[in-house]
């Protein structure tokens, strides 16, 4: 990995947007270096989609200095449009056309020429596993296929910056993994990706940096590891059938919070294989019989709990995430 001292692919300063009296974005600052994946993480209504809609020139901002691929979003929208590809939360495909026709339509609008357009369409159909369904109307596609076609359509013009607005919401785990592979492939080609998601795991898997968005403000920004360190939610829960085992385990592990009624012991830990093995070795050495073991890893709710400082806000976040 080398760091190029080039200008960032996306640079946002003090982005503001209100719909009527409702402030949706309250002064957002973002910098996404070229060739990296940046994830905007937050519950529904946090303002993620609004950021994508503004940066992809779909709607205007109320204020802020916004540059995408080196172009001012307000003054040179067409230069920005020429450099980006967008995949929305709801597939932006033409339902009456076939998958291939959708891609050829994009190729024609990018003025690729007939032969180059056909080649590009065939290539993308193949890459997204849609070759077999190429001649079928999109209306007959499954959710995962539509999302893949949607992403493929955004890539026809070879964009340098790709916006993915909740690309895997509503997809089954297999389709989700397939999409993750595609994103990794894009980054390998030097494309910059701005991704929004509700899933910490997704951000964790894909993003170089993650920003946490809550009620139109960035509440935290950093790498996945940096963010997780701020979350106290990770722990291992051990349950026992005998109070003596509980006491012995607490002694052996030198801490944790014991619950004498439920015969459980909560030990802080990230649930990684290495730390789990160490934990079990220590229990073995002390000759403690463990009944059951569950690992609790930090999730989005924990992150919110920790970073917005209060159950009230986290509950609200949970509520709106539904």
């Amino acid at each position: 990995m080398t760091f190029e001292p080039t200008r960032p692919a996306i640079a946002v300063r003090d982005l503001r947007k209100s719909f009527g009296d409702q402030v949706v974005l309250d002064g957002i600052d973002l910098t996404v270096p070229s060739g990296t994946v940046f994830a905007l993480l937050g519950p529904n209504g946090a303002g993620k989609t609004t950021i994508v809609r503004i940066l992809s020139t779909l709607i205007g901002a109320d204020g802020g200095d916004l540059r995408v691929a080196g172009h001012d979003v307000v003054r040179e929208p067409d230069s920005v449009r020429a450099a980006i590809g967008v995949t929305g939360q709801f597939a932006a495909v033409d339902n009456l056309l076939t998958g291939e026709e959708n891609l050829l339509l994009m190729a024609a609008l990018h003025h690729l020429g007939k032969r180059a357009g056909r080649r590009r369409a065939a290539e993308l159909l193949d890459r997204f596993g849609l070759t077999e369904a190429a001649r079928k109307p999109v209306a007959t596609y499954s959710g995962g296929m539509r999302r893949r076609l949607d992403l493929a359509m955004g890539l026809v013009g070879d964009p340098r910056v790709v916006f993915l607005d909740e690309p895997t919401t509503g997809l089954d785990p297999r389709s989700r993994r397939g999409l993750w592979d595609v994103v990794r492939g894009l980054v390998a080609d030097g494309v910059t990706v701005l991704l929004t998601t509700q899933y910490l795991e997704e951000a964790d898997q894909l993003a170089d940096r993650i920003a946490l968005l809550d009620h139109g403000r960035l509440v935290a920004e950093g790498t996945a590891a940096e963010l997780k360190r701020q979350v106290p939610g990770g722990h291992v829960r051990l349950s026992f059938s005998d109070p003596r085992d509980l006491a012995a385990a607490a002694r052996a592990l030198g801490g944790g919070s014991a619950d004498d009624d439920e015969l459980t012991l909560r030990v802080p830990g990230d649930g990684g294989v290495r730390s789990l093995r160490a934990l079990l070795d220590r229990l073995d050495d002390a000759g403690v019989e463990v009944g059951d073991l569950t690992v609790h890893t930090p999730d989005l709710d924990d992150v919110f709990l920790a970073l917005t400082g209060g159950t009230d806000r986290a509950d609200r976040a949970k509520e709106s995430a539904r």
Partner: protein
Amino acid sequence: MTLVTTKTLSRAFGDSTTMLRRSLKHMVRYPSMTVTLIGMPVVFLLLFVYVFGGTLGAGLGGAAGGRAEYANYVAPGILLMTIAANAQGTAISVAMDMTEGVIARFRTMAIARVSVLTGHVLGSVIQAVLGLAVVTGVALLVGFRPTAGLAGWLAAAGVLVLIAFAITWLSVALGMVTKTVEAASNLPMPLVFLPFLGSGFVPPESMPTVLRVFAEYQPFTPFIETVRGLLLGTPIGNSAVLTVAWSAGIALAGYVWAKALFNREPAA
């Protein structure tokens, strides 16, 4: 401020052609719309010639009299009704299209924006021409006997295409000004009735004063009189000039309105 370069123009032309292909594909995939749009004026033609034609034709007092006389009288009105019915289809397909996610995608692409609309307009005009051809064919079968030569036919075709172009731009705007597809299908409805409230089905002189005045000043009367004159040799008078003026006005207003509606910020 804006310099219209040849590059901009050629891009607008190229993108419009692409969007036209898209519209035509939609029509092929969704033929029931086209069939309905052409079916309606055909039904009205048969109804008026065979059910009302005998009596109405007698009232015209022409040389041929009766049904044959009326078939000639009503055919130009039905042709204009074909254009109006087609406009209703345009508004519906535009309204449906605007709910599709792909329109949002077009907005984030470096294309000539207006091509999204011109694609619809050109597609609809082609659909109108198709409808006009079918309706003319049926009219000829049921006794429509134009006296025009080739020049007259060509001139009539040109006038009809001009009118269709104008009405289509207006209906593209109507398709976007409404919030729902249902509303979009109702809004252009009055256009379908305008031939009735003009010289399409009976001479306006036979109407009560208020209706007659309305008939004389609404655009469909000069539209119908021009087509009737070109095909059947009836006097045209200033109808041709009025037709061109109305068409230009409606097309321009529809274009400006539609463009403004499309450039509105999409709802959040």
